[in-house]
Every structure is written in C-alpha cells, then in structure tokens.
C-alpha cells in the first residue's frame, strides 16, 4: 500500500532454548510512517528489542519469526533473500544499540567501521567514504573527526562511541532508524545530549525513527507516538500526549506512576509495579499483566484482550474497555 514506511502484522517470534520454547513476541502489529518518531516502551524482556531484531532478521538461528506481513518501503521483508535484506540493512534501515562499549568492533578503527557501510552500500571509493565519514562525525558532534577516524573504540568515551554508532547508523541516510535503548548505558548528562542529537538528526534528515526504551522520560521528550509492550504483546498505542495524560491501560498507568516527576518539582512518590513479568516459556492464557494488575477481573485470566480503539490513534488492549463493562457501569 505504501502508506506506512514499515508495517508489521501479527508478528510472532519464538526462541528455542534448553528449557523449551520461549514466546518472546506474541502477535504484534506495528507501523511507522515516514519521518515519524515512534517510541516503544516496556520493561526489559517484554519483546520490544526482539520484535525489531525479528523485523531485521538479526536473530540467531534458534529464533523463529512468523508474521502476516512485514512490509518496509513497499517490500515484503519476509520474501527477501538474505542478500537483499543486507542491501536494506545499514542503508535504508540504520540501527543503534544499547551498549556503545561493546557495539563497536574493538579491533578496527572508527574510520574503518564507519566507512564500511558507505563503501558497501553507496559504492563509494575509499577517499570519498573517508570524506563522508568525517562529515558524519562532524554531524554527530565529534570534534577533530579526522583524528578520530584513526582511533580505536577503546580510545573513546561511551558518549563518543554512541555518537559514532549514530554516525554509522545514519551515514547512508536511512529511511528508518531503529534505536534500541541508545541511552541506557550512558550517564544522565550524556543521555540528554544523545537524545538531543537524535532529535536534531531526525529534523535534519527527516528519518523515521523507532526508539526502544524502558525510560518514559526519554519517550516524553522526543516521540510523537508510543507503543507500550508487555509480555510479548502490545498493551497500548497512543500519541505521547494521550499516553501521558489519558492512559487507557492499567499497565501504562503503573508505568507512569513508577516514574519520578519530570523534574518539574512535583514530589510524587515513585510507585513500583508489584510482581514480576510473566514467564514467556509458558505465557498466561489471558492478559499477561493480569497477575500484577490492580484492576484485574476474572476474564483477564481467561482470555487476552485485543487492542481496542480508545480515541483518535489511541488503542489499548484491556478488558476494562469492553463494551459490556461500559454497559454495566452505565446500568449502575
């Protein structure tokens, strides 16, 4: 159809482990439009990274991915050969990972690793690639770029390395940038700088961005639309404003409560969500959050709720949204 840059339907990803089959992603739908800055939020292990890796086919051999549709830029990704996928990766889709300390190969210079996708995808000569690499380093705010090119990752600080990673991801002007917890491993001040940089770059290149994080603060400052994941499923999907001011899912409410104020001085107490995430080796039949949900009903344990439209571009998967409840409430 081409109306979305990336469209995923009913994506399921399972891992084979020594303990059995782990159902990491259990049927999610996603879409990103060109130029959109979307966030995916959830606790660790909720399947947010795995779903992205599934889309890009970066998972190990012990993973199996199945989807009705994974369409990127009008192409069905599942039909592409590995070779064709590789043409997209690094070129049309850039990716940034959580830990900048380990994401760069310690044995090669920054320049080498930065020029690699340029030479591969853009058929640039070495000299041209070098020029572009210097340009990119400048863009991501690294001083003395020509000197940095010759340095090895271990000679740079964490923040610098993440900038380099961003440069690597962005150097081919990708249509989509997937940032998997890009700031988690960084100091708070650096976090802010990196997020600023990403926002800046998004403006500059108009790249659609998927930001994966477990940090609501990061989402609040940059994203337009947010997907909340839990237990391998999507719990809620909404614009940033709706999510923060009108959360429709008890899990989202819980998440919001667990975050300290945004620094505006409010002394709201931090409330952690009691309990632990479900075991995806043997996922619950009903809503994955039921066990921890303060508003859980009997039905929540019996069957999963589907995403239901709450408002414009706002959907949530919760039995509380079932029309019968409204009826009952109305009846009272």
């Amino acid at each position, binding site marked *: 159809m081409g109306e979305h840059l990336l469209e995923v339907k009913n994506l399921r990803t399972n891992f084979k482990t020594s303990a059995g089959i782990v159902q990491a992603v259990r049927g999610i739908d996603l879409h990103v439009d060109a130029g959109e800055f979307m966030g995916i939020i959830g606790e660790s292990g909720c399947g947010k990274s795995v779903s992205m890796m599934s889309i890009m086919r970066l998972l190990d051999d012990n993973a199996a991915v199945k989807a009705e549709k994974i369409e990127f830029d009008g192409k069905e990704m599942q039909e592409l050969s590995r070779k064709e996928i590789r043409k997209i990766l690094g070129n049309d889709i850039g990716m940034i990972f959580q830990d900048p300390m380990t994401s760069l190969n310690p*044995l090669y210079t920054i320049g080498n690793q930065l020029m690699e996708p340029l030479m591969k995808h853009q058929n640039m000569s070495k000299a041209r690639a070098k020029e572009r690499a210097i340009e990119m380093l400048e863009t991501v705010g690294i001083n003395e770029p020509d000197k940095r090119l010759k340095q*090895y990752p271990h000679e740079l600080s964490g923040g610098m390395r993440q900038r380099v990673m961003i440069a690597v991801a962005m150097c081919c002007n990708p249509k989509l940038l997937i940032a998997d917890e890009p700031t988690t491993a960084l100091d708070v001040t650096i976090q802010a700088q990196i997020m600023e940089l990403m926002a800046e770059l998004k403006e500059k290149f108009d790249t659609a961005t998927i930001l994966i994080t477990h940090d609501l603060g990061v989402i609040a400052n940059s994203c337009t639309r947010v997907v909340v994941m839990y237990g391998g499923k999507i719990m809620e999907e909404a614009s940033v404003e709706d999510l923060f001011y009108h959360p429709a899912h008890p899990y989202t409410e819980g998440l919001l409560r667990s975050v300290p104020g945004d620094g505006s001085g409010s002394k709201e107490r931090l409330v952690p969500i009691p309990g632990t995430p479900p075991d995806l080796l043997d996922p619950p039949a009903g809503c994955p959050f039921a066990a921890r949900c303060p508003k859980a009903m009997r039905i929540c344990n019996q069957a999963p709720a589907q995403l239901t439209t709450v408002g414009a571009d706002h959907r949530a998967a919760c039995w509380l949204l079932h029309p019968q409840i409204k009826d009952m409430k109305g009846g009272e």
Partner: protein
Amino acid sequence: MSRYIVKRLVAAIISMFFLITITFFLMHAIPGGPFSAGERKDLNPEIIEAIRARYGLDQPVWKQYLNYMAKLLQGDMGVSYKKTNYTVNELIGLGFPISGEIGIIAIVIALVFGIPLGVVAALKRGSWADMASMIFATIGISIPTFVIAMLLMYEFCMKHSLLPTFGWGEIRHLILPVICMCLSPIANITRLCRSSMLEVSRQDYVRTARAKGVGEGSVIFKHMLRNAILPVVTYLGPLVAALMTGSFAIERLFMIPGMGRYFVNAVTDRDYTVIMGLTIFYGAFIMLCTLLVDIAYAFIDPRVRFED
C-alpha cells in the same frame, strides 16, 4: 614500540639470568656427577682428578658457576660430558634445525586445518560438520602421541611398507612425524577456535556489523575471525616453542636426530652441560616466542598497548 621491545628484552635477560642460576644450582643439587670416581672405576684417581680439573669440576660450586657464566657470556656453553667430542653449541646446531623444520611444518598444518575446522564447527553449531570436527579434535587429544606414532608406523611401515621408518632429508621422511606432531595442535586449535568463534558470535559488534548490512563473509572473516583468533595467537607462543624444540617420543620412534632426543637423552644420561645448555636455549626460545606472540597480539588487538 621499540622501547617496548627493549624493555621486554631486558626483562627477558633478567629472567634468563634467574633461569640459568636456578638450573645451574638445581643441576648441582643432583647427587653423583660427571666423571665422579664411581663412574670411572677403571681409572686411576689421579687421572680422574686430572679430567675433572680439565672440566673445571674440581673447583667449588660458586666458582664453577662464575666460570660457566663467564663462558656463557661469550656464547660458549661448554662441552658435553658424555658426548665428549661435541660442544653443546654444536649439538644445538645439529638438532635445532631439524626439530625446527618439523615443528614449523606441523604448526602451519595445524593452523591450516585447525582454524577452518574450528570456524566451520562454530558457524554450523550442532550440525554434522560440528560433530565431525569436534570428534576429530577430541580424538586428536585423546590418544597418546607414542600410541598414534606406533599405530601409524604399524600401518604404513610394517603392514604396507609405504613409508620409511627412519631417515632424514626427504619429504617422505617427514610425513609420519609431522602427522603425529600436528594432531594434537590441530585438535587444540580447532577447539580453541570453535569456542572463541562462538564467544565472538554473541558479541554486540557482530550484531552491529550485521545491522550495517555487511556481507556474511565479511562478518565472519573481518569481524568474527580476527577477534576469535586472539586466543589462538596466545596459544601459539608456547606451541611454537614446544613444537620447534622437538618431541622426544616422535623423534625417538622415527629416529629423527632432533633437539627433543638430545634433551631427553641428556636428562636420562645426566649430561649436565647439555641439560644446562638446552635448558638455556629452550628458555631463551620460549621467551622469544612469547615476546613475538605479544607483539603479534598487539598488532591484532589495538587495545593492547606497548606498555609495561
């Protein structure tokens, strides 16, 4: 870089000094000794004394030590006490090129077979190729060398007369010794390479490389193998030293006039000067190999700096 090497060489010389001193006094702690009265009961005591004096053995140990060190500084390791018409330097000159030749060939073969086997096993983890190479690798380190040597000799020499049992100088003389010599290194390198490839394959930077859309060949050879090879490089230092200085079992069974036989024979013959000389040579050679490996390592891994 050169400063680093100089530093390491100085450290090596100091180590060598301790090594020589320790070995020297260890040797002299062994009861009995060369040209002792007991050994040459047929000789007149005066003649024995004269011989001992000729070798400087009549002097107190500390003086013998000083004499030895003084001569050693001039590169003279003395005369063999048993093979009295050979100097230790001559024996090393005879034995080392031969053991070294077999050793180098065995190392090259071990690398040429071991690394690909390990890589394939790691990449096809759980497949038949993995199983096969691991079984081969396990066999390689499961059978004692002398048993393998004997079995090969039995098959190729006794039953089928395909290969000579002894001799030196032609390729056919090399085949069996080299096979025996490289089996266990192949096995070790395969295992080492496989486990480090597996380790590396889980690294974030490999995922990064894939996310960049780099070709699989480049991912394997550029991003994985070079990292995975590091443990192999470390293993190579002692391996090169051990293989190039000869294996006694193989040299004895295939009658190769190499260093390994000189050493074991010297030890069992209590030929003190030869033991000393060969130990010093081994020591220096091992330290050299370690230094070379460290330098090579630093070239491969930029995280290792040339510092103390």
